């Protein structure tokens, strides 16, 4: 045995020493594991103190230790501490292993003898394992300075601007004809009630004009290859049938277009657009797109009114245009694809879709908007009668075991905003039916107070049913909202003219498939999973892919902006590094042993394993590999080895833990 191993046993005050005979364990290791290469066994009061670390450093220098075992707390606490100490003394940090005898021994057992024996076994296992450790170097990957931002809502806009302003190039991809996202549909924003368009439009214009931003609207990412620092995205730029080089966005084409279409996207079904359209006046870019499914020409080869009337030279309408496939290189990716509104027809007892005067929150937003279908007038579905009484139903599709268990977080404030707008513009009585009022941000509670003072009624209870089945003459012709007022303990039937359903937020219907594209996962509720819910909320488990805004979970505009900026900061940090170091815990394939069976290919969730047809072997991309080791365990030829977690290491540790190493070898 050529290794020289030092074993250090920590007292951790009395945390370990109170239950484990630390001195005895250190001496046992020095004596009984001597034949395995242990040259020194020490115990010390606090190994993590600078004196404790010096102990290790000195022994490395003076005794020429080649391996270090520290038996102390959990490696999640101090592995980095001791590995750094070893590095300072000139030993490769990956030749140091920790053995947990605090969290896994002294804190969970009371029997001193058993605890001491278990500590010995644990150290024996650690010693056997560390013998097989190899010196490792972090993997260095250069970073492409461009960034791909997917989703042009407020989160994506913020992220793109931050990065572009810092001097780096951004490619912003948006599925719809214009950026702006849901925020562009809103009228007022809580709690300050400034108009959404007033604060959003300048940012949209800035994106459109920024020299560092390539804006690809009406486009979708179809494929992502590569890994952190070196992504390659394949993007489909759908044909808009409009030549943007010559188009001035004058609007004559959609004025002349004879085909009216209900706008289910931007106007939430409340308004009409044409077959060739720009979703709203402030759209960025300003160019219209053609809706092929509704265009008369595409249906029966007649019309071409848009082309006929297009005043530009050359004509900007091009019916021959085809989808373009673009390839974009990027070092980092930010996903900010937003949310879908909960489909209120899924709760039939609320009558949405059947009872005309039941509106969704998004419909009401469009109605409030001065540029919307009613020019800001709050009216019933007949488009003329102002309501005299309105119920706002909170938590529609949220906090409900049958639909979504989570709180959609924005609906309370949104409902309060609706209550305020209805009272201000119509003078109607407004009832808010809520489960709890949640107003936990700056100036939010004050806004709630304000709505209370303005005379909004608040009923604490979940609405059971909304019906037009009257029971008494006063209910005739009204919508009756059946709700239990839990504060007075009574069932109430409130006859009103209009009901607004504050529908919750849901992950995009295609979030799962899109997540797969980028190699990130959805949690139980369908939102993308962050690397850490508190300490790393914008990174994901896939290096180089970040999330911002509602893709990570429901949030309001300020929180989305914060995340967009945070993701941008993380990306800028990575770009500034130029290269990044990755933990060297990776799997690799010995090509001589690989039979090309491809069993491992399908097992990797990160698409890190590719089959090289010419050589008839598989190969692992170390920058994509996350080091889970599943392929190592699966390889029938034993051709895959895992650095830092090799078969040899684990088998040796098993034998060590079972104290097989105490018998003289070979007998």
């Amino acid at each position: 045995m050529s290794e020289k191993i030092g074993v250090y046993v920590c007292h951790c005050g009395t945390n370990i020493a109170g239950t484990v005979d630390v001195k005895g364990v250190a001496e046992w290791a020095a004596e009984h594991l001597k034949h395995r290469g242990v040259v020194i066994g020490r115990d010390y009061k606090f190994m993590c103190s600078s004196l404790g670390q010096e102990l290790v450093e000195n022994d490395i220098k003076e005794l020429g230790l080649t391996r270090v075992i520290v038996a102390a707390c959990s490696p999640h606490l101090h592995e980095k501490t001791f590995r750094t100490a070893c590095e300072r003394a000139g030993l490769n940090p990956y030749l140091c292993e920790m053995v947990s005898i605090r969290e896994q021994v002294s804190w969970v057992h009371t029997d001193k003898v058993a605890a001491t024996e278990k500590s010995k076994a644990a150290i024996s296992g650690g010693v056997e394992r560390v013998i097989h450790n190899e010196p490792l170097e972090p993997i260095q990957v250069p970073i492409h300075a461009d960034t791909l931002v997917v989703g042009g809502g407020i989160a994506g806009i913020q992220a793109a601007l931050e990065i572009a302003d810092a001097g780096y190039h951004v490619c912003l991809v948006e599925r719809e004809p214009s950026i702006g996202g849901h925020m562009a549909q809103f009228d007022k924003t809580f709690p300050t009630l400034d108009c959404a368009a007033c604060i959003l439009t300048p940012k949209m214009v800035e994106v459109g004009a920024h020299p560092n931003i390539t804006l690809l609207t009406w486009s979708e990412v179809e494929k992502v290859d590569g890994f952190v620092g070196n992504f390659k995205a394949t993007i489909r730029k759908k044909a808009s049938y409009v030549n943007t080089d010559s188009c001035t966005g004058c609007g004559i084409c959609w004025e002349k277009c004879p085909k009216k279409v209900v706008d289910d996207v931007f106007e939430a079904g409340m308004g009409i657009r044409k077959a060739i359209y720009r979703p709203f006046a402030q759209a960025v870019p300003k160019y219209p797109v053609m809706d092929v499914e509704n265009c008369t020409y595409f249906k029966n080869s007649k019309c071409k009114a848009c082309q006929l009337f297009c005043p530009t030279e050359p004509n900007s309408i091009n019916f021959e245009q085809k989808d373009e496939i673009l390839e974009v290189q990027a070092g980092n990716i930010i996903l900010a694809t937003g949310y879908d509104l909960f489909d209120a027809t899924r709760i039939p007892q609320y009558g949405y879709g059947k009872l005309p005067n039941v509106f969704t929150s998004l419909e009401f937003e469009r109605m409030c908007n001065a540029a919307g279908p009613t020019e800001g007038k709050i009216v019933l579905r007949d488009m003329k009668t102002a309501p005299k009484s309105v119920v706002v139903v909170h938590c529609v599709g949220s906090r409900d075991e049958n639909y979504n268990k989570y709180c959609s977080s924005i609906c309370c404030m949104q409902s309060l905003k609706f209550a305020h707008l209805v009272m201000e513009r119509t003078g109607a009585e407004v009832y808010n039916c809520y489960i709890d009022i949640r107003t936990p941000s700056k100036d939010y509670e004050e806004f709630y107070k304000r709505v209370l003072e303005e005379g909004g009624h608040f009923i604490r209870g979940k609405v059971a049913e909304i019906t037009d089945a009257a029971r008494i003459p006063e209910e005739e012709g009204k919508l009756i909202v059946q709700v239990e007022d839990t504060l007075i303990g009574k069932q109430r039937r409130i006859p009103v003219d209009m009901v607004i359903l504050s529908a919750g937020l849901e992950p995009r219907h295609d979030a799962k498939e899109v997540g797969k594209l980028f190699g990130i996962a959805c949690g139980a509720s369908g939102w993308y999973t962050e690397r850490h819910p508190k300490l790393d909320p914008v990174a994901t488990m896939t290096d180089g892919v970040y999330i911002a805004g509602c893709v990570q979970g429901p949030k309001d505009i300020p929180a989305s902006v914060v995340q967009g900026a945070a993701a941008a900061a993380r990306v800028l940090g990575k770009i500034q590094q130029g290269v990044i170091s990755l933990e060297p815990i990776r799997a690799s394939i010995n090509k001589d042993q690989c039979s090309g069976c491809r069993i491992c290919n399908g097992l990797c969730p990160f698409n890190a394993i590719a089959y090289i047809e010419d050589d008839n072997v598989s190969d692992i991309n170390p920058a994509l590999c996350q080091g889970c080791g599943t392929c190592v365990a699966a390889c029938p030829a034993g051709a895959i080895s895992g650095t830092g977690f090799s078969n040899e290491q684990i088998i040796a540790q098993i034998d060590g833990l079972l104290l097989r190493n105490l018998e003289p070898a070979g007998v």
Partner: protein
Amino acid sequence: MSEQFEPTIIGFTCNWCSYRAADLAGTSRMKYAPNVRLIRMMCSGRLDPTFVLRALSSGADGVMITGCHPGECHYIEQNYKALRRFLLLRRVLAGLGIEPERVKLVWASAAEGARFASETTAFVEEIRKLGPLNWGKTDDRQQTMDDVESSVVNRPSSEMEVPA
């Protein structure tokens, strides 16, 4: 020490959930049976069934495999692969004449220290009831291991793998 049989058990944990559950059991000072000795891997998907056989043939009376709950895997879905291997491994064990109950699979999230502790204690009691395994305690241990390796390690791990 009492006369009752004290089993030796090897526990495999993943780095992200179940090892942290064990950490949490520690920081919360929960008490559980001291018979399980842990090995930390990055993921339960790393678990080569050979490791389990190796542990059992080297003197362990039982093996506890732990990982993140389905759907919560740090590596997206590798714990499902651990589950598949576990189910097949139990069949192989039965074929070798070993009680499949000697190998247990426990999901424990990083927040489930209590679960980790109670499952550990329960497993120790289960193994205590089964009694010692005594595989590998005979002189021809090496022979046994060679048998296992030639019959299980080289060939059938491919058979154990269900295509994804």
